């Protein structure tokens, strides 16, 4: 991933550092939210106690060795 170079002509190490930090924190936020979304999807299909969801994903649960019944 390329880090965009600061546009200001007065660009110093401080500016570069702040850009790098911003990109890093942005990346971290994206990663953490994707992680939560992924965990929610797995929870919904694999662990939800809603009867219809359990029945629909029943074979998925057994086959993936998720606790079932």
């Amino acid at each position, binding site marked *: *991933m*390329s880090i*965009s170079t600061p546009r200001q002509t007065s660009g110093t190490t401080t500016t570069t550092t702040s850009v790098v930090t911003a990109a890093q924190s*942005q*990346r*971290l*936020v*994206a*990663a*953490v*939210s*994707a*992680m939560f*979304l*992924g*965990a*929610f*999807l*797995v929870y*919904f*299909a*694999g*662990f939800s*106690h809603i*009867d*219809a969801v*359990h*029945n*629909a*994903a*029943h*074979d*998925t*649960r*057994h*086959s*993936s*060795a*998720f*606790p*079932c*019944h």
Partner: protein
Amino acid sequence: MFKRIAQTAGFTGLLAALLLTLLQSFWVAPLILEGEAYEEAPAAELHEHAEGAMAGHVHDEAAWEPENGWQRVLSTAGGNLVVAVGFALMLAALYTLRTPSRAREGVLWGLAGYAVFVLAPTLGLPPELPGTVAADLTQRQIWWVGTAASTAVGLALMVFAKHWLLKAVGAVILVVPHIVGAPQPAVHSALAPEALEAQFKIASLLTNAVFWIALGWISAWLFRRSDAPGTQTGLNHAL
């Protein structure tokens, strides 16, 4: 950034779910159906006897259930898709923090996922056919999630930590759920014959291994492919 994760996870999930559904339909699902045949026979008997005592009890019949055949296959494919996209989102999230240097490295991530979500939990709660007596569902789910989480943290420390002490802590965290032990029923019993249960365990463990290796490899390949410097417009977008 998030677009790249979502794209990777979406396509990876789709491909891996297709593969899993194919393997399941030919190998795992027939065993589940066979197991259900054992489950349904005594259940019908029990229901008759218990009718008086269960008056007013609302059965699961109200909830929708797919018909055997295409409806059930499609419904399972849907379940597989949701689970596969979920796992692929987690992998792609990790790749944004530590991009694989080559697609083959994804296989290692896939194997780690297999260890976290399949191997470690099945050490305490092996794959079971319908009709197997087990401990309380919520208790088992809590142990499953706890085991997956501690295996993930333990493995990460053992692989990425620099200091030997941290690696040792990782090994301890990895082992703790197995020392605590999975919730077990008072008496173990299963309606299906032991040979069928054994066959199901092997089928489940092997199909999941193939699924995870495919998931890791495809996700790393797609994630790297979308990282063509200068050509990727969505790359610098905020969330």
